């Protein structure tokens, strides 16, 4: 279907089909304009002063934290699958000949043509970018930041190093390290559900903030288990902040949210840097073994 294929009756049908889809989508969105139902959203905002000041972080990592666990899995799987396509972990049935696999190939950035100033500033910029990534990570609960953003900034620093210096990247991450850090990140996230599961029975219950058994919010019916004080202090106290609002002061804590963010950041760093590294240099099992 080149652009030639769009001429004639086929093209007319295509255009009509797209028009119908456009009309369907736009009319339904048009009717939503101004009548979007608020639904459950205000209830989440109601709880905001008791948790992280950044309510979106609480929503993403606490109220709907399990959705985000699977979402983190999406990026992990994305890295796993795209690297598998390039050559890591292609399997063969014993004794059966298949197609010849695509020969692993490796590209290299042409680093000799870069001018001296860029090369001189490369290392400081990479260091500052990594520091910025860590700042964004630590600001997860208080400002619009978080693990995913940290991972993306970090991997852009890594890509910058690859473009400026080629294989002599000052930020030297091996494939093994990246795979390990990705896996460790996702398992940190998954295992942070365990304290809540063991004490209250709910997976990923935020034991640090402990909104529902500590009596912060009155009128809850049915939660029997109580989070032990030691666990609440361990996960909650390091992240306690004093929220001075016009109608009162709240000693809120994000609980496990910042820790989850660290796991998410590790996972995203591992996944995206691995994608960059393998897309550029390819995957060669022999080469990996010799290291």
């Amino acid at each position: 279907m080149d652009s030639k294929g769009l001429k004639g009756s086929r093209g007319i049908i295509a255009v009509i089909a797209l028009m119908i889809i456009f009309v369907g989508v736009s009319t339904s969105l048009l009717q939503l304009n101004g009548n979007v139902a608020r639904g459950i959203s205000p209830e989440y905002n109601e709880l905001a002063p008791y948790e992280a000041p950044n309510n979106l972080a609480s929503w993403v990592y606490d109220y709907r934290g399990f959705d985000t666990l699977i979402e983190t899995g999406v990026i992990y799987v994305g890295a796993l699958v795209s690297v598998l396509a390039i050559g890591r972990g292609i399997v063969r049935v014993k004794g059966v000949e298949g197609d010849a696999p695509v020969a692993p190939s490796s590209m290299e950035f042409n680093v000799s043509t870069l001018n001296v100033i860029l090369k001189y500033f490369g290392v400081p910029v990479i260091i500052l970018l990594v520091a910025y990534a860590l700042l964004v990570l630590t600001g997860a609960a208080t400002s619009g930041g978080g693990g995913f953003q940290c991972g993306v900034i970090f991997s852009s620093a890594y890509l910058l190093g690859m473009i400026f210096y080629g294989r002599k990247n000052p930020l030297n991450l091996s494939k093994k390290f990246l795979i390990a850090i990705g896996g460790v990140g996702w398992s940190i996230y998954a295992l942070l559900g365990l304290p809540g599961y063991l004490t209250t029975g709910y997976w990923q219950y935020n034991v640090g903030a402990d909104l529902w058994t500590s009596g912060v919010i009155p009128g809850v019916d049915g939660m029997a288990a109580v989070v032990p004080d030691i666990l609440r202090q361990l996960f909650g106290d390091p992240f306690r902040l004093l929220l001075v609002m016009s109608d009162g002061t709240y000693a809120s804590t994000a609980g496990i949210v910042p820790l989850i963010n660290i796991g998410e950041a590790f996972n995203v760093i591992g996944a995206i840097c691995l994608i960059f590294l393998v897309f550029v240099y390819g995957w060669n099992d022999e080469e990996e073994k010799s290291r």
Partner: protein
Amino acid sequence: MIEINLQLLCFMAAALLVVIGLGGMLFLDNIIKKIIAFTLLSDGVNLALVTLGYVEGGIVSILEPGTSAGAFPENAVLIFGPGIVLTNIVIGVSTTAVLVAVTMVLYRRYGTLKASKVLKGERK
């Protein structure tokens, strides 16, 4: 008469992006162009989702020192839209990565980026 406001404009732009992306994905032949069209489609969906959270005269859903915590629930934007957009971005990134990886491998095998030729398995 429909009142023109920001939400409406954003919704219309989103619908347009979705249809452009859809058309590109279905009718362009170059695989890389198809992937670019997919990112347009995904951005259109993102725009629609973000606009879903729009509240007239609303504030960002981060508490600020000195504001009122009592008024926050009513004023803050609806939280589903921005939250789901994060997921959609991640899904878009992963899908794009997989598509690009497979395209790279197929390009090495067949030496062409034309979908019509690659899928038939013709050599250049």
